[in-house]
């Protein structure tokens, strides 16, 4: 097999596997935030702000995988 094909295979695997964890995490995070907003609608603003901070931090993990995939495809030739 062409050595570059391994890099492209690895990029696909990195993105796909790297999206699993953050996906589960974001699901739990947003689900819990909605649950607590439904319980206490009066603090919805605070919860939403903190939820966005959490989303930003969680999502970064998936984006590291994305950057690794980009490096594998375009830089590691």
């Amino acid at each position, binding site marked *: 097999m062409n050595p570059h094909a391994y890099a492209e295979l690895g990029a696909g695997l990195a993105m796909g596997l790297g999206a699993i964890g953050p996906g589960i995490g974001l699901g739990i995070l947003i689900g819990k935030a909605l649950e607590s907003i439904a319980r206490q609608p009066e603090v919805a603003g*605070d919860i939403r702000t903190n939820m966005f901070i959490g989303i930003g931090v969680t999502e*970064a993990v998936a984006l590291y995988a994305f950057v690794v995939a980009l490096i594998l495809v375009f830089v590691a030739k």
Partner: protein
Amino acid sequence: MKKGLKWVWLVVVLIALVGLFLLPGGAKETVNVAGEFDLTPILKLPSIGPVDLSINKAVIYLWIATAVIVIMAIVIARNLKPVPGRFQAAVEGLYSLARDGIARSVMKSGVDTWFPYIGAVFFFVLINNLIGLIPLPLGEHHQLSFYTATANLYVTITLALFTFVFTHYAGINKYGVRKYVGSWMPSGAPPVLKQFIFVIHAVSEFFRLVSLSVRLFANMVAGHAILAVFFAMALIFQSYLIAAALQGASVLIYLFEIFVAVIQAFIFAILSAVYIGGALDSEH
């Protein structure tokens, strides 16, 4: 009559779909999605030492965003009305989001000192992200192409470095170097553990810089790559049926990208506020 008309429409749509399916595709063109992010200099200028002064499309997008922000601020500030018009209401809404939603909601002290930076970075990232969704004739052969200055790691690292420097400046300015660096370690711990925690904290400070810049960069690159792939898929499949279907999908992706642009600006500004606020209240 009404019912008959419905049938006619259904037949017309079916014939159109079959026609689109049977029509031969357009001329073959190669598609290079990664080429959308290449930065070829538009105006070549000599470089001073290691600094290349050439003007490429990222620079032009940055200039446009800066001009939009400056002109918007001047126009709004020159004729402030007690009863805001549509334009003033929109800018006031964004301003109060930056002040009340971001700075005041996460910083315990120092809002008045640091809100100018938080607000400026919010508006800069927001306008840059939104202008990146407007195609400008800055491609290789001056064709319309999508690009955004924030899909460039150098731009986002510069913005993140501002936050990084201001965070530690705020902490050192308030507590002095000894006390600020001392606040990174728990006070009642044995010395070995103290040093260990100090190293962990220093590494995490550095990784904040990485995650802050890479988050914005990767989000913008991913969004523009997905848009480019959806636009390019019509060329890849060589079929008018798929092209017609993809137009609807790319409009939806485009709307989602507007949402992502606003959310990323919000997250960048709120994390800057969290870091600076954390340095200001770092005394245990």
